[in-house]
């Protein structure tokens, strides 16, 4: 298993952790009957609940891109210490991103997101070169 694939697995587990954290933060703030219903009307997600939900959606997008980078590198045997370092930087940034969003750290959330974003770009470019 390449380091990138190890990080990919950990990042997928982060998704599960963030989902549970989102539920925990939303407990008592969200209408449960509405949440388990057909959602024909938008559910209200006040404050930190909405922020955790947006952080989760953002991870879904970031993780899909990262998965392509990690898997293409693994399948083509192009793992280097550079791509491994970029993968770990991605994961660390995604972990910091969660409290940064939940607690509204401005502009740190954006900066941390940019770090994870460019780590993925670097991996995709490394896969192509």
């Amino acid at each position, binding site marked *: 298993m390449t380091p990138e694939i190890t990080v990919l697995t950990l990042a997928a587990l982060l998704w599960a952790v963030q989902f549970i954290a989102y539920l925990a933060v939303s407990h008592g703030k969200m209408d449960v009957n509405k949440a388990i219903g057909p959602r024909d009307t938008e559910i209200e997600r006040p*404050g930190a609940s*909405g*922020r955790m939900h*947006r952080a989760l959606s953002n991870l*879904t*997008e970031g993780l*899909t*891109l990262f*998965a*392509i*980078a990690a*898997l*293409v590198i693994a*399948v*083509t045997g*192009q793992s280097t210490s550079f791509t491994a370092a970029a993968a770990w930087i991605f994961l660390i940034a995604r972990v910091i991103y969660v409290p940064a*969003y939940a607690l*509204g750290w*401005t*502009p740190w*959330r*954006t900066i941390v997101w940019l770090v994870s*974003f460019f780590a*993925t*770009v670097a991996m*995709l*470019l490394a*896969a*192509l070169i």
Partner: protein
Amino acid sequence: MSSELSILALYGLVVIIVVLLNILTAMSQVGLMTLGGARDDMPPLTGAAGRVERALANSVVAMALFAPAILILSAKDAFTGGTLFAAQIFLIARIVFVPIYAFAIPVPFLRTTVWLAGFFATAYLYLQAL
């Protein structure tokens, strides 16, 4: 590395560019402070910014479908001239899809036709993977 895998990595970069376009168009509409803030009261994006946001959401769905097809074909060593052609069609269709959506080019069914090209190319890849 096979051309199909290169196309997959290239499509990742295409989505990266659409993410950046999404940020830039949203920033010009709601401002840097709102976008960089906690977004608790961010208004829905309208016009071109809204279209780029929807194009991005669609690109991410297409990416989540395209990536497994290519990776399964790679794992099975099942690449053919047909799979390369389908991957090329997918990449071109998905690149063209973004400006067609963003500029709301008023040709009836143009965006939908281009979307269908990418969609059926992906479906073909899955059939080949089976």
